């Protein structure tokens, strides 16, 4: 016998979860964003990499341990951080692809970028996997970090 949950996963409901995610991001509700993710949700912000002398730190891991601190830090450095969702497409398997502009005005250091009060707006592509329980199981983000650095007045390739 098949038991249906109150909200079953469809392309529409999966897209709804991601729409809600960006609504909460726009409201700086990091706890609420995290609540939309499964406890072990995977996270990959592909452009995030810090090259040290002997190792490279990447923006790969889990939402709870990498994503959440990253979102919190971004909002602290860019207190007016916002997003504009341009497109969201999805399928019944829980795949959701979103084209989103992220923008904000820098007030605190971000990585190696000193604050100069400058504003950035950069197109991002996010790929989500939403599970059958309508919780986000994975987030992957792509964008051009060089664009952000240059808009913020940081001309070094770190």
């Amino acid at each position, binding site marked *: 016998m098949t038991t249906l949950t109150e909200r079953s996963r469809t392309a529409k409901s999966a897209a709804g979860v991601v729409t809600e995610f960006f609504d909460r991001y726009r409201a700086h509700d990091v706890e609420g964003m995290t609540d939309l993710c499964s406890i072990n949700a995977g996270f990959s912000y592909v452009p995030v990499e810090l090259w040290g002398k002997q190792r490279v730190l990447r923006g790969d891991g889990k939402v709870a341990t990498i994503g959440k601190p990253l979102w919190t830090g971004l909002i602290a450095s860019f207190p007016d951080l916002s997003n504009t969702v341009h497109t969201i497409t999805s399928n019944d398997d829980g795949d959701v692809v979103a084209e989103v502009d992220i923008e904000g005005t820098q007030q605190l250091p971000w990585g190696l970028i000193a604050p100069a009060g400058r504003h950035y707006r950069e197109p991002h592509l996010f*790929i989500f996997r939403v599970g059958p329980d309508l919780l986000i199981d994975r987030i992957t983000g792509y964008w051009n970090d060089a664009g952000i650095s240059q808009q913020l007045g940081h001309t070094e390739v770190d």
Partner: protein
Amino acid sequence: MTSTPTQTVQAFLEAFGRHDIDAAIAHLAPQASVTVHPLGLRDGGPDTLRQVLADLVHGFPDLVISVSALISTGDVVTAQFKAEGTQAAGYAGAINQEKHLDIDQAWRFTVGDGLITGVSAYWCQAQLYRRLAVKRYDEIAIA
């Protein structure tokens, strides 16, 4: 028989991977819209993409495209792939220092009637310049 959107994108990427740019571009509709965010190219056409692919193959003659996922969401197909190669000529302002490139990227395609009608390419130009030993965005050609 008309190809599925995923098959169309797969054929495009396979042609690109073979460095057969004419075959790749043949999968685009004549009025296709092309945006390549890291290069600042917006609302171009097939010729824009032809030049982007040609520059990549010229700069990295051993370019390998490794597709990790093709995600179909209606008439949109999103490809996640890695581009790897060794620089052998100038690329995007960076002089050739024979550095190895490996860049993970995602391209979003819209497909209609068996042809690609839109492409939006996302990768990180900071990662690319880092691998090519570029030190500054305002002095890209200086190693």
